[in-house]
């Protein structure tokens, strides 16, 4: 921010801006050239592969979006990065995992007569129960997390809650490892939702699979996003949340129970993370104690990308990040091991060049 009356500072930051623009143009040009090259000049993949990449990107992106909303909600209210958010997602994923494992062993009863388990005989109640338990467990941990690790730190300097959050994240990851072991576990989906099965769509001569789990994930996330939007925009609690985000002391003077609202915000964000965890398990299959870390950071990237504190921004940022991550290695011609580097690079670039995000100015630069 150039300060008025300080020509020295103004000149320096103008140079900074020019450097930013030049770098941005160079990078954007390179990207456009790569895109042109790979699509028209040296087509490495057929159309169906691109569509498949895009589909998986959108599905993954919708999960990121759901997690990102949790970050954004908490950041909007407390100006604090809830570093342990990804681990709440892990807890939700494990909650769902145990429900599915239990339902797998319970026989469907005499009514169906076949040797099916409850899981395969009644997939819809089973999935609903899985989501319910995953969401409940994660919401409960979100509530407890806030109560134990963050509430005593209200009003402390900003690094203090961040370090507490890092500590909570380490604690939850290791508790997960000690409780459930280090091995990766397979989610036991009901037979109708077998991973990889889905509708075949013909594109040209090839088929593209639109998986059932992917569709379920995407539809559910859209429903959750719409629900959340309505909650924040139309309900009393949503109004209270926005008031607390705007100004805590004034909100309290208006008769809002600030601590209660913060608690409920953590419950909502935990519930979303839990839903995302179960979706992750059902769609991608593997859960383990560290499963939340990388999606957590990526979702944070998504939240920053859309402008942190901005709910539609988080949704958009999540979808964008998912698609970029799915298409990026192919477009840039990178090794697929470096998929995560793309997300981190976007994070770094956005924070450096446009810390207010794409969708705008929710925070002033001073808060950044």
């Amino acid at each position, binding site marked *: 921010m150039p300060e008025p009356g300080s020509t020295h500072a103004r000149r320096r930051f103008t140079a900074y801006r020019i450097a930013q623009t030049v770098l941005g143009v160079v990078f954007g040009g390179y990207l456009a050239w790569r895109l042109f090259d790979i699509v028209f000049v040296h087509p490495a993949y057929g159309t169906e592969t691109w569509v498949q990449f895009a589909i998986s990107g959108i599905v993954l992106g919708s999960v990121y979006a759901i997690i990102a909303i949790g970050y954004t909600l908490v950041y909007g209210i407390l100006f*604090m990065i809830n570093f342990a958010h990804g681990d709440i997602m892990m807890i939700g994923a494990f909650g769902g995992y145990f429900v599915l494992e239990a339902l797998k062993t319970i026989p469907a009863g005499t009514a169906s007569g076949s040797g099916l388990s409850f899981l395969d005989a009644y997939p819809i109640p089973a999935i609903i129960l899985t989501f319910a338990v995953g969401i409940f467990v994660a919401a409960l941990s979100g509530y407890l997390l806030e109560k134990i690790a963050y509430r005593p730190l209200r009003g402390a300097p900003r690094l203090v809650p961040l370090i507490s959050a890092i500590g909570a994240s380490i604690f939850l990851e290791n508790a997960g490892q000690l409780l459930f072991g280090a091995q990766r576990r397979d989610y036991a989906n009901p037979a109708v939702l077998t991973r990889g099965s889905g509708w075949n769509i013909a594109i040209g001569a090839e088929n593209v699979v639109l998986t059932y789990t992917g569709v379920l994930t995407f539809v559910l996330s859209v429903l959750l996003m719409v629900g959340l939007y309505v909650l924040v925009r139309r309900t009393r609690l949503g109004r209270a949340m926005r008031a607390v985000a705007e100004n805590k002391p004034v909100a309290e003077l208006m008769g809002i129970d600030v601590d209660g609202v913060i608690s409920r915000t953590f419950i909502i964000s935990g519930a979303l993370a839990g839903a995302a965890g179960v979706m992750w398990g059902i769609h991608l299959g593997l859960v383990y104690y560290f499963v939340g870390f990388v999606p957590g950071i990526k979702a944070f990237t998504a939240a920053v990308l859309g402008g942190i504190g901005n709910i539609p921004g988080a949704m958009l940022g999540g979808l964008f990040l998912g698609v970029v991550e799915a298409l990026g290695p192919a477009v840039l011609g990178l090794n697929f091991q470096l998929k995560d580097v793309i997300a981190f690079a976007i994070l770094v670039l956005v924070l450096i060049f446009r810390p207010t995000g794409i969708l705008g100015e929710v925070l002033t630069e001073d808060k950044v």
Partner: protein
Amino acid sequence: MKTKLRESLKAGLVYGIVTIFLFLIGFTGTAANLVGKVIHFGAGGSLTPAMANLMIFLAVMGILAGYAGARAAKGQADTWSTALLRSALTGLVHGIMLASIVYLVGDLKVQGVKMTGYLPQLLPDAINQILYGMQPASAAVFHLVFMTVMGAAGGAAAHGIGRGAWRPRAAARWSAFRIGLAQRPDVLKLRANPMTRYGLYAIAVILLVLLPRLLGQYWNYTLGTIGIYVLLGLGLNIVVGLAGLLDLGYVAFFAIGSYTTALLTAPNPHHLLWSFWLTVPIGIVLAALAGILLGIPVLRMRGDYLAIVTLGFGQIIGILLKSDVLTAFTGGPKGVSGVGGPTLFGKPFASDIDFVYLIMLAVLLIVFVTNRLQNSRVGRAWEAMREDETVARAMGINVLTTKLMAFAIGAAFAGLGGVLFAARNQFTGPEDHNLMVSINVLSLLIVGGMGSIPGAIAGAFALKGLPEVLRELENYRVLAFGALLVVMMIIRPEGLIPSSRRKLEARPDKNASPGPQPEDGSKLP
């Protein structure tokens, strides 16, 4: 009374969850082993020593719960009977929770369900231990009664301690003694005399020189690790503690230092075989340059955004090192082995003792440099910038160069640490440079006290030394780190040995925003 009972009930719930959690992560068994090391308990009948040790540990938990139950919701003093009643209630809740888990687990075991697939700590031995060799139902009843009794005992202890007014009196006497001692003329004179300080330094140096000779190889290795972490801690101390820039990608500079030495001296993948001493300045300079390169783009960032960007940088470097992309250059996921060590007057550094001396020398040097920096113009500029960047700029501090200095010097220290690390281990690989290193260094600073040199040293000993002493607790070390970070932030955010300025500022400012509400939920007027 009703609120008080509710608080006692809550304490029981909390302790129940904690005890069950400790059982499920297998900590109860480990703790029982530790108890067995301290007390050799001759058990009779069907009770094996392991079970008896577990019983002692659970008794401690029960007494603590009862203590907490009687202490919850302070108000007017309890009578003996209410204190006992409340703590017994806490114990009862604690017992009910533990008993139900014991019954559940025991019953599942009787039915032949294998639980280790889901909860790997529930080994048959561990279950037998907590069942005390009884049937599940009777074991559950036993636990219930046991916890209630222990809770009441804890309540009695709490009440007994609480009634005697010895605690404030003792504290007052101790602080009077301390102040009195500090103000006695001879003590003041002794403190003012520079010879005292030099004498203390001399004693410390002699101790440091003798220490590695007295220790075995294993402890020397540990001491070397602690020393390297002191270097890292002092470097991060400049960035985070003095300049207030939270850097979570600090491990990147450590990696640059160790990979510089490794790639320049190792036979593979480049076969350069340089001398170790040449790589020291190169590693330091490269790390410092990397620090500046990282610093330039993040100059305008503050607080948590900076933390996330640096975390992103650290992760990118970690992923690159681990992937196959750079295998030809850095050895890829397998790392670099056969790193050359230093030679002095033709004699190679062979044992860990030699390296301990080398690392100690480096630590002393860095402590000296840090100390001088802290009191220099740039050190004061860092602290001013940490307090308030805008004001610092208004005071004529060039914020940009000051920040870059902090990044560069902090990174240089980490580079030195990395150089020594690679040379001592004769190996370096991506696993040595993961996120946990950054977190460990940050934790040691927080535990020790940010911005303070003794704090960084004490923190390194606490976080790298203590776990070596308590080897049984190895599995729970990282878990404890996490919990420790949270607890430190809540009860002592300034660290164990804080710098005087930190002490003032780390406390929550109650006036800044609505503070914590009263426990019973009543609204402020």
